């Protein structure tokens, strides 16, 4: 009898739960699709002064989730931008959450699965296509008719659009340059084609026979150990004039440029580490940037050249900058006539989520945080190039490194954007390139694999 009672009760409860679960509607069905026109904004147009007397009907918290910041950025936002915004919008409190680039995807999927979360979220350069369907159409709030300032944003603005509609605003441009130690490099600097790069790698890499590990590495391209990061691959590919998609929208990994890029990555890796079977160890992690000097030991951190963003380079006050050149990646004009110098530009941005109930307020905050002066200040706290063209003054022109970076970005910048199913492409490419460097797959097999898997992923 006791067993019967237990089983009966538990059985009833489990059945009830299953029925409730089956009948419950997921959060997604209650949200409007991202591409429908938003309701008319209730705030005043942006080209009139912000009215002081506007009173929100009830207390509101505007939530912002940031990933691109330093302590100085947060301090400035909390002391300057947020108080002014809250004063102009009585009843509105701005709440900033300081997130991390580790685990961001898991965090964001939680927001979108629940249909609730921060109103404004910080996205990476290539994420407009990934999240586009779940982002708000902000044309009515941030378009030129509503905010004439928008025309001061350069090409970085394309990263903040989905299907031609604005979804937010870009914060900065952080391109990938080739930084080189002029005092350490043997040979022509910078190398002007693939053959020169291979020779440079052989001449400037040192392996210690006692430890079978690198003590000097000619080039650290994003990931030092594998030298097979997908972003490095894309940088080289674009420098050959490669297009990621064909005219019909299908992937273009079966192109000559893709094969040449893959072969180059393998050649560079082997010119540095030798064949995979040699099992040479990577450069030990040093203090600070790989092209800097360790203050404690006064020895170089080991890299002659670094292909990465400015945040991997030494900070601007370091004396090493006297011996560092900043160049684009020049491609291989000897073999590919369409080659061009390239800096792959990452334009991180702030987007407004479609689930946000305060899109108008979000737009107002963005306008406040992205004025000419504010965009300059935000980037000054991070040492990066402002996305607004008219914000590139002050620290940008005072620091010769940033000035050089800004010049190269405007001349040779190629946006890291418009990549369909970017998360899947990253996984597919990293898997295939990982097998390239261990020689499990040949370059031809690698590009064929990527082409097949990516085509499948886009279906």
């Amino acid at each position, binding site marked *: *009898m006791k067993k*019967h*009672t237990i089983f009966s*009760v*538990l059985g*009833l*409860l*489990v059945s009830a*739960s*299953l029925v*409730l*679960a*089956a009948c419950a509607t997921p959060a*997604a*069905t209650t*949200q409007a*699709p*991202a591409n429908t026109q938003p309701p008319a904004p209730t705030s005043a147009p942006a080209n009139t002064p912000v009215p002081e007397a506007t009173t929100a009907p*009830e*207390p509101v918290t505007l939530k912002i989730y940031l990933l691109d910041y330093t302590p100085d950025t947060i301090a400035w936002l909390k002391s300057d931008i947020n108080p002014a915004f809250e004063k102009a919008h009585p009843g509105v409190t701005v709440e900033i959450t300081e997130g991390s680039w*580790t685990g961001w*995807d898991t965090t964001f*999927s939680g927001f*979108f*699965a629940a249909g609730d979360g921060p109103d404004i979220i910080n996205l990476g350069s290539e994420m407009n296509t*990934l*999240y586009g*369907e*779940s982002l708000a159409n902000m044309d009515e709030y941030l378009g030129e008719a509503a905010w004439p300032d928008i025309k001061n944003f350069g090409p970085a603005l394309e990263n903040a659009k989905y299907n031609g509609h604005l979804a937010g605003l870009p914060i900065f441009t952080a391109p990938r340059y080739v930084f080189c130690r002029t005092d350490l490099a043997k040979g022509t600097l910078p190398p002007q084609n693939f053959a020169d790069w291979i020779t440079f790698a052989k001449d400037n890499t040192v392996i210690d*026979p006692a*430890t*079978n*590990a690198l003590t000097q590495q000619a080039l650290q391209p994003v*990931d030092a*150990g*594998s030298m097979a*990061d997908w972003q490095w691959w894309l940088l080289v590919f674009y420098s050959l004039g490669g297009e990621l998609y064909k005219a019909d929208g299908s992937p273009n990994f079966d192109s000559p440029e893709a094969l040449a890029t893959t072969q180059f990555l393998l050649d560079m890796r082997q010119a540095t580490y030798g064949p*995979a*079977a*040699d*099992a040479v*160890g*990577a450069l*030990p*992690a040093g203090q600070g940037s790989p092209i800097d000097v360790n203050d404690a030991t006064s020895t170089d951190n080991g890299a002659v050249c670094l292909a990465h963003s400015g945040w991997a380079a030494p900070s601007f006050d370091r004396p090493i900058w006297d011996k560092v050149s900043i160049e684009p990646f020049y491609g291989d004009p000897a073999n590919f006539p369409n080659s061009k110098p390239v800096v792959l530009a990452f334009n991180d941005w702030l987007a407004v989520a*479609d689930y946000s109930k305060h899109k108008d307020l979000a737009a107002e905050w963005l306008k406040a945080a992205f004025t000419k002066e504010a965009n300059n200040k935000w980037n000054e706290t991070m040492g990066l190039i402002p996305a607004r063209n008219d914000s590139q003054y002050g620290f940008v022109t005072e620091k010769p490194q940033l000035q050089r970076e800004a010049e190269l970005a405007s001349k040779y910048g190629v946006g890291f954007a418009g990549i369909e199913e970017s*998360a*899947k492409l*990253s*996984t597919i490419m*990293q*898997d295939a*390139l*990982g*097998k390239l*460097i*261990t*020689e*499990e*797959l040949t370059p031809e097999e690698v590009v064929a694999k990527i082409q097949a898997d990516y085509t499948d992923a886009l279906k």
Partner: protein
Amino acid sequence: MIRNPYINVTLVAGATVVFIILVSFALAALSRFIAKLMGATRTKQANTFAGYLFAAPWIVGFLIFVVVPMAFSLYWSFTDYRVTANAAPNVIGFDNYTRLLFNDSGFRASIVNTLFLTVVGLPVQIAVALFLAVLLNQKTRGERIFRMAFYLPVILGFNTAVLLCWRLMLNTGTGIINQLIRALSAAFPPFGYLNRAVIFVVEIVNAFFLGISNGKFSLLIKVWEAGFPAANRVPLWVQSPLWSKMSVVFLMAWGCGAMMLIFLAGLNNIPKELHEAAEVDGANGWKRFWMVSFPLLTPYIFYNLVIGLINSLQIFEPIYVLYRDNQPLVSSTISMVYYLWQASFSHFEIGYGSAISWLIFVMILLVTAIQFKMQDRWVTYDLY
């Protein structure tokens, strides 16, 4: 409702507590009603009510946080639900399962990797735990300190801070483990030969498993052709796909403290008279262990095997922390649960990820059922 986030949170927490109390009473009342329908006496009904009232908070939590999400997950596994699509899930039948079982080479590779960690890692973990337990069973000085030291990794767990320390220790060039290996190899040449032999065997075995994953054995051929490793070779722990899984096995062995305690309890339960009798009959230490202790430890081995198998089939954290920022190595070490995480939270395919989770559940259920079925053949519960 008042639009203050802090008061909101307090009200929601209070409402949750009230909800749990009300549901507990409702559940208890329901159980009493069912008991009454089944003809129970008043006393029995009262006892049923009281019993379910106290158990109800856990039952309610179990239903809300386990059963309901499982039901959602089962439903989504038959849909193409994508979190970022901003659209309702679309039922696609068994397409997710078909794709997983027959068309997804990535999932198959994750099964092979998980199999490696289970077939190689779990026996190593159990062996190390048993060895430590036998050592600790000797009554020596400082036994409690050693016991705590060996159990400390279990308390620390595979959290991020610990695993980041391991990343530094496993660094090929500057990591302390390789520095120790180099120092010992230089000081004791036989150790150097042993090191090279271990490297050779490990790389051959891993290259074989990678070949099974990829369907190509070119790496195995290259490793074989490279021959016996040179004298200056050290393991490339977190740098090479030939060593990425071994790093995880290393961590599994390091975290064997819980198993060690189970074995220690088992060794303490063996009657001393059996060892004394064996000693009188002339059995040496090894024979006493193998003929007396080991058979009587089989229930504890069985327990550790079941728990260890479930854990190794669900391994995730060490791989995530060690290799998440080293993407080219992920495919050589990706486990089934890492693959599930990647599909659900990196590619945002919740439907597909749900199908993976149910497949993993069925696999673990089958393996555990087989283990329980086979225990009669080798597990001895009798003392005499």
